[in-house]
């Protein structure tokens, strides 16, 4: 079901810059209980910031998460944390290892979603990492193959989706950045997604994908049972638009207009130009506007500057359409 939102709704993808006190506390190895008040403060502050900037759909900023896969792995049974692996440049992450049957123990993000939603009248997106990415970005020492690992994860993560739904979440984003990694496995990713969303017809599901080779999975990816694809568009010089020219994009799109890997804050005109490119190919009713990916790698000043430019550009484009 489509949520009641203005034309060209604006949102952040998920993560926001962690405040220095949280980074410091994490460095010192504080436990979850001790960290919680700091994380709640950060959420309160950023809800205010997002409202002041004028975003339409808000996020909790994921201050309580480290890595998007490790966080869920730590909260599910069946994983243990592995050593450090490099993802790019000087960035490393601890890659989890599936060592026994995966089991959902208790709600993972539900209390954070409820807390965040209690702070604002605007809708808050619930966000979780999808089963395909959890499988692909973990080592697997237990399941005989990738398919069995992926489907086992889908069955367990579905319980988190269900609990978010029960708590009241009606916009749920499932992050699947790995989905384009093996085009031949798209049917598996689809099967896993079907398990995740089954029967929840009044939820608006978004699937976030970034930094992938979309040319290999487009247009087949449109068969995924979700309503909105959140795609990174500015990082690749909007090359994806060529694909949309060739085959119409039939779902809604959260159109990434902010390069999250650059320190440079985009100007309003630059963002307007990117939105305009989307409008050349897509119906305005299909388009949401957001950054390419989470903003956790940017400074607070940069993140605010980028979101402000994005919202202002959207306002101007919206006015010109309406």
């Amino acid at each position, binding site marked *: 079901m489509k949520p009641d939102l203005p034309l060209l709704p604006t949102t952040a993808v998920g993560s926001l810059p962690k405040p220095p006190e949280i980074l410091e506390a994490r460095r010192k190895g504080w436990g979850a209980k001790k960290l919680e008040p700091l994380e709640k403060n950060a959420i309160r502050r950023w809800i205010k910031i997002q409202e002041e900037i004028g975003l339409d759909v808000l996020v909790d900023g994921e201050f309580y998460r480290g890595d998007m896969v490790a966080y869920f792995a730590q909260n599910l049974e069946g994983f243990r944390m592995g*050593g*450090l*692996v*490099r*993802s790019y440049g000087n960035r*490393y992450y601890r890659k989890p290892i599936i060592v026994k049957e995966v089991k959902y123990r208790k709600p993972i993000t539900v209390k954070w979603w409820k807390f965040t939603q209690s702070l604002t009248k605007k809708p808050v997106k619930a966000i979780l990492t999808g089963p395909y990415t959890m499988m692909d970005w973990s080592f*697997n*020492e237990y399941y005989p193959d990738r398919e069995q690992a992926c489907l086992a994860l889908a069955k367990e993560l579905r319980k988190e989706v269900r609990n978010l739904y029960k708590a009241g979440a009606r916009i749920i984003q499932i992050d699947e950045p790995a989905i384009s990694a093996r085009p031949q496995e798209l049917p598996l990713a689809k099967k896993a997604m079907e398990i995740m969303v089954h029967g929840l017809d009044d939820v608006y599901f978004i699937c976030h994908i970034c*930094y992938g080779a979309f040319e290999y999975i487009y247009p087949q990816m449109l068969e995924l049972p979700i309503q909105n694809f959140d795609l990174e568009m500015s990082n690749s*010089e909007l090359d994806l638009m060529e694909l949309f020219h060739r085959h119409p994009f039939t779902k809604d799109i959260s159109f990434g207009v902010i390069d999250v890997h650059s320190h440079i804050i985009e100007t309003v005109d630059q963002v307007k130009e990117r939105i305009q490119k989307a409008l050349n190919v897509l119906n305005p009713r299909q388009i949401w506007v957001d950054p390419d990916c989470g903003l956790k790698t940017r400074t607070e000043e940069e993140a605010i500057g980028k979101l402000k430019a994005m919202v202002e550009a959207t306002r101007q484009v919206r006015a010109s359409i309406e």
Partner: protein
Amino acid sequence: MKLLSANTGSYPKIGSDPKKQKFRVAYAKWEAGELSDEQFKKIQDEVVKEVIDEQIQAGLDMVTDGQIRWIDPISHFTKNLEGCRMDGLLRYFDTNFYFRQPVVTSRLVIKHPVACDEFVFAKRYSSVPVKQVITGPYTLARLSINRAGVDFRTFLRWFTEVVAQEVHAISRLGRCFVQIDEPAILSHPKDWELFKESIEEICSERRRLKIYLYTYFGDAMPLLNKMENLPVNGVGFDFTYSWKLVQKMAEEGFAMEAVGLGLIDGRNTRMERKRKILGILRRLLRNLNVEIVYLNPSCGLEFLPRENAFKKLKLVSEICKEARQKIL
């Protein structure tokens, strides 16, 4: 027939132990302008020595410099080329590793080959033979954006010229080992003729070099027989994408000077059972018409934590030793 243990390419730059994090610390300081290029290079040199020591300690017969100086396999060879600039990040095949994508706007001009100096440094230090890895022209071309307005054949030829110069620079050093990595051809088998021309061009620069072509991140079955006709000294295969490749190779054989058997999964921490790998080797070695068999991981090891990478190499070496006694 000789059976040797080898690394396939990369090796993790840091370990989880704080003592093995100096590369990461130095990189951060270098990025912040607190370390000069020269100071950072000195740390890179130290880490190259460390990872060569680890590979030797694991018992390998042939090592690499671990590709310690590479940020990624694509920008390492393209970032300083004329006619090219770097674009955004893109996932490297089906890994959770990213590379900066080159955008080519005109014919490529190489200012200074990068692989030769790396090779000289590693060779001088290592007590066992070193293999220099170079990303192949087809993979470089496939993963670059063509904004030069030329067809793919011309585009590939430009990259072939660049790689040929890298190879030529090393060929002056005499009898050495160079590995050309071409993972991209496995997902574009229809480009075989173009690919072959490109490899032939590179091999024409070889002099006394031993050139090995390594493929991974895909199923090599459709190209197995064609590979035998390439003018390289050896071909390396990744068996983790299709174990049927074992059956095909065992039934049809494979003839070449050398072959690299990527039977140890370089992407998963699960340790292979020695008995299983020895069984596969027993089946394969009977039908291989080759002088040298390298047992190696299926791909570079930077996709594993350093501790696991070491264990995998140790396993490679142990299996090799056992196979020499029991099979050869």
